[in-house]
């Protein structure tokens, strides 16, 4: 089944807040080899002017993924995840994510296009704090191989 092009342009309502925890940030930082103390030591983070330990730049993918699931796991969208290849990714940070943040995400499906047997799906997750302050924007393109590709 092909990817449903009718999902292009769709904007989802803000999702349930994601609460950023110190232990999760430590776990993610260790996994990507981010050894800077601002990820694990609240005093080191405060010394740089942050309220608590901060996330590595690509941690926002964890927050974005929850929102992207609304599209990817929707059977009506027709995305066969076993045929998905990650094509590109971009993070725009208005400020670093820190422990204690409660983040809501609005998922935008910016484009769904067909190209040489591939369906290209471009999404943008706009991440804000509970008070509506913009925190980050995560853009991602997935390529889905067709049945015979």
């Amino acid at each position, binding site marked *: 089944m092909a990817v449903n092009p009718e999902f292009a342009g769709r904007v989802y309502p803000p999702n349930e807040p994601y609460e950023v925890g110190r232990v999760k940030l430590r776990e993610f930082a260790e996994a*990507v080899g981010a050894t800077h103390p601002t990820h694990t030591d609240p005093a080191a983070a405060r010394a*740089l002017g942050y309220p608590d330990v901060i996330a590595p730049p690509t941690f926002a993918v964890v927050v974005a993924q929850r929102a992207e699931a609304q599209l990817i796991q929707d059977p009506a969208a027709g995305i066969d995840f076993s045929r998905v290849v990650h094509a590109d990714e971009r993070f725009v940070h208005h400020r670093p994510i820190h422990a204690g943040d409660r983040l809501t995400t609005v998922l935008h499906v910016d484009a769904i296009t067909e190209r040489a047997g591939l369906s290209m799906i471009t999404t943008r997750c706009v991440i804000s704090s509970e008070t509506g302050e913009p925190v980050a924007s995560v853009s991602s393109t997935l390529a889905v191989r067709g049945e015979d590709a």
Partner: protein
Amino acid sequence: MTLPALGDLAVGQEVARRTLTVDRARLVRYAGASGDFNPIHWNERFATEVGLPGVIAHGMWTMGAASSVVSDWLGDPGATLDYQTRFARTVPVPDPGQAEVEVVAVVGALDPESTTGRIDLTVTCDGTRVLAKCQALVRLS
């Protein structure tokens, strides 16, 4: 802690270089930490069934690990304002053993107006570029 000074930098200058290693245990750890449990990153049988040479690293692991090289040079991981890449080639991760990913960070552009710089990352595995147009916009002093 002071960020690197824009005035001390020149376009084309190499600011950081590191060889990262990745093995299967690292991929399992990243899967758990990130929530990306796609079996192509930990299950050899599944990976070969979908036409891959074997288990491959998460593109997002490679992108994340490369950003740490920039963060360490900056001295402040919060100074990365914009970070992007295209995933050009996969990084096959052998078992037993490990894959090596080389990261070289070079100043791509400097903007005195906003006191920012663009750092261009060359990320290779076995001499082949795995990330394309990998760029970080960073705050400088």
